[in-house]
């Protein structure tokens, strides 16, 4: 145990930076805005590292326990249900702190070069601070509502940053899409939270995820469609995670989100925000593992499926950022699958550890890839691979760092990706051979498409470039730092740090799995080299021979079209339009009808008032007669 009070500043600083630069936007010099943001995240980074060292290495005890470093009541919903805002320090949150602050700081620095001269320079940094704050708040959350709050804020900053080039229609559309898709997924998350709170009467992780707590030890709730209510709740929670982490079928927003500035893609859509779903599942892992194993199976399935699915699409894409986006989806699928196959405690929890490990390493190499891509785009002013070729001459620093990251993601030792991927494969192998087979294939596909990208961009034919030059130091330094991380992150003893129950365990190296996986990765690399190292027609031939399959994957399995069909055709045209029609014509029509009928009736009965005295007298008399007859029959005394 120790005093982690200072961690509160990790949250406060970016938030203060956001508020300060946000409120005074337009009044500050853009460079000053950037300086404030960088300063804030820089201090936060230092504090995060300090916290990590304190937590992992200055910790006296054998196991890592969760510590509530700070907590105050933000909002009282009822006498028992209270929403706290606080800081939860445990192994995964500390690990995430390191990841987020590091990548974020790098991206901040990188951006000063990348975004130079942009109209929205100040705005960009303001929102970056907001994102950092939200993401840090998310991982430090002590309870479900807090995580939901920051979850939404993360989504918001993602929306704002994707839409940074708001005058570009495609960016606007992408931002909207990202928001709405994740929002829809969050609906499930929210309902899941409500269900959990209904059964437990609390939002707090410390109570919900307590392995000896009531939620896990006692069966609660009824059974619905063959699964317990708790399982349903956990599946719904996962739905939120799937939305943020772009799991099938919610993945569609992520490739479009590449419309944002590239550093944003690196930070939000590669390293940090998109793994929030993985983090969420990890955060709730105790419950999943001990009380809702069926939900875990769902997670494993979705994860495995997505990783294959996205990898297949990635092969055929031509936009470098899209390729990276699909690769991100695929890699997150890996992590999800790993969580899904994981057991609880000790060696059985390898999948969990592996997933976190992969998350950690992935953050470094994927951020590096994106920033490298950013560097390329910065130089070439295009996203399309057809505009690139033989860039290794022009962009040497970018080339080297990019290659390191590509090797890492392909799982080539000794780069970090190799270690984490190996653990995942081992976990899958131990649990489900089918998943192992799928992931094994995906490893090969990954190596293939990444090297396809690499070769097409850095080798291949020289194109005509306009005054092309290597990016400024502000951009290359972060690349080198991240490359350094990519190189050495794999050597961290993760199973000693991050485990399901906080108790470290020893892993041994799975040679039987590692060697074949390296083998298939190399195979992928060789195929890619053969096809793309030199410009040739072979790739087109293969594509043509695959025919329909090629075009289906190139069109991303038409998932977007299905979505558009469902929203435009079904929800808008078949539900909303009729609702509007119903409202205008039936409901409002009824109100108007009442009025019109009254007026029409008024016109109808005007003959009653004919102006003729005879008739008046007749009506008079009839009135009397009716009254009298009424009494004669009803009061016959």
């Amino acid at each position, binding site marked *: 145990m120790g005093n982690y009070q200072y961690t509160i500043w990790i949250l406060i600083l970016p938030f203060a930076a956001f508020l300060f630069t946000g409120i005074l936007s337009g009044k500050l010099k853009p460079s000053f805005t950037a300086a404030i943001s960088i300063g804030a995240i820089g201090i936060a980074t230092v504090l995060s590292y300090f916290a990590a060292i304190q937590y992992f290495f200055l910790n006296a005890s054998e196991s890592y326990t969760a510590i509530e470093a700070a907590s105050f009541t933000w909002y009282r919903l009822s006498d028992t249900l209270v929403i706290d805002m606080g800081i939860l320090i445990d192994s995964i949150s500390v690990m995430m702190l390191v990841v987020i602050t590091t990548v974020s700081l790098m991206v901040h620095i990188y951006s000063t070069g990348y975004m130079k001269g942009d109209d929205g320079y100040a705005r960009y940094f303001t929102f970056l601070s907001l994102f950092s704050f939200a993401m840090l708040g998310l991982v430090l959350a002590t309870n479900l509502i807090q995580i939901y709050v920051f979850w939404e804020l993360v989504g918001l900053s993602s929306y704002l940053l994707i839409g940074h080039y708001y005058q570009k229609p495609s960016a606007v559309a992408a931002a909207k899409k990202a928001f709405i898709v994740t929002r829809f997924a969050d609906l499930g998350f929210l309902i899941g939270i409500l269900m959990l709170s209904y059964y437990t009467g609390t939002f707090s992780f410390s109570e919900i995820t307590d392995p000896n707590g009531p939620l896990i030890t006692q069966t609660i709730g009824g059974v619905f469609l063959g699964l317990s209510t708790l399982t349903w709740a956990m599946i719904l929670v996962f739905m939120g995670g799937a939305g943020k982490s772009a799991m099938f079928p919610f993945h569609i927003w992520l490739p479009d989100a590449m419309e944002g500035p590239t550093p944003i893609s690196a930070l939000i859509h590669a390293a940090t925000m998109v793994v929030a779903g993985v983090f969420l599942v990890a955060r709730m892992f105790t419950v999943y593992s001990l009380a809702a194993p069926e939900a875990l199976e769902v997670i494993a399935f979705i994860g495995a499926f997505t990783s294959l699915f996205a990898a297949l699409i990635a092969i055929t894409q031509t936009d470098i950022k899209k390729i990276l986006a699909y690769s991100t989806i695929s890699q997150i699928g890996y992590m999800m699958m790993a969580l899904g196959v994981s057991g609880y405690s000790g060696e059985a929890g390898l999948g969990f550890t592996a997933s976190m490990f992969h998350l950690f390493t992935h953050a470094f190499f994927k951020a590096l890839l994106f920033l490298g891509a950013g560097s390329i785009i910065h130089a070439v002013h295009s996203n399309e691979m057809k505009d690139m070729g033989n860039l290794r001459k022009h962009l040497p620093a970018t080339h080297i760092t990019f290659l390191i990251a590509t090797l890492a993601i392909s799982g080539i030792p000794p780069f970090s990706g190799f270690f984490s991927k190996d653990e995942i494969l081992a976990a899958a192998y131990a649990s489900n051979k089918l998943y192992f087979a799928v992931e094994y294939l995906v490893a090969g596909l990954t190596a293939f498409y990444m090297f396809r990208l690499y070769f097409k961009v850095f080798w291949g034919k020289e194109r005509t470039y306009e005054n092309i030059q290597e990016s400024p130091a502000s951009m290359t330094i972060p690349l080198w730092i991240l490359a350094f991380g990519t190189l050495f992150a794999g050597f961290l003893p993760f199973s000693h740090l991050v485990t399901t129950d906080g108790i470290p365990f020893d892993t041994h190296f799975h040679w039987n799995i590692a060697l074949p996986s390296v083998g298939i990765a190399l195979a992928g690399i060789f195929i890619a080299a053969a096809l793309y190292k030199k410009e040739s027609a072979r790739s087109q031939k293969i594509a043509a021979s695959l025919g329909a399959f090629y075009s289906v994957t190139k069109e991303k399995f038409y998932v977007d079209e299905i979505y558009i069909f469902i929203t435009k055709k079904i929800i808008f045209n078949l539900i909303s339009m009729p609702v509007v029609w119903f409202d205008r014509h039936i409901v409002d029509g009824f109100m108007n009808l009442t009025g019109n009928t009254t007026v029409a009736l008024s016109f109808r009965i*005007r*003959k009653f008032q*004919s*102006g*003729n*005295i*005879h008739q008046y*007298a007749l009506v008079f*008399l009839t009135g009397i007669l009716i009254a009298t007859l009424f009494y004669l029959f009803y009061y016959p005394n």
Partner: protein
Amino acid sequence: MIEDIPLSHILIVSTLIFFIGVYGFLTRKNMITMLISVELVLNAVNINFVAINRYLYPERLEGHFFALFVIGIAAAEAAVAIAIFINLYRNIRSIDVDEVTEMKY
């Protein structure tokens, strides 16, 4: 003499006159004839009052006096009504009720 005629007989007659008057009021087009019908109605009522007074409550003359006043009022009413008829006649040269339907609906 009242031994010979039962009360109900008189009441029946008066009621019939009343409704004859009503019928006249409903069917006559000339205003003066309508007024005549009203006089029939009033007379019918008067018969009622007087007969009831005489047969049932002879000790007090309430019905009798009532009838007396009704006659007086009938006269006043007729006078004013006829004055208005004449005025109308000067305006539209007719005292037919079907002609006075300028205001309706």
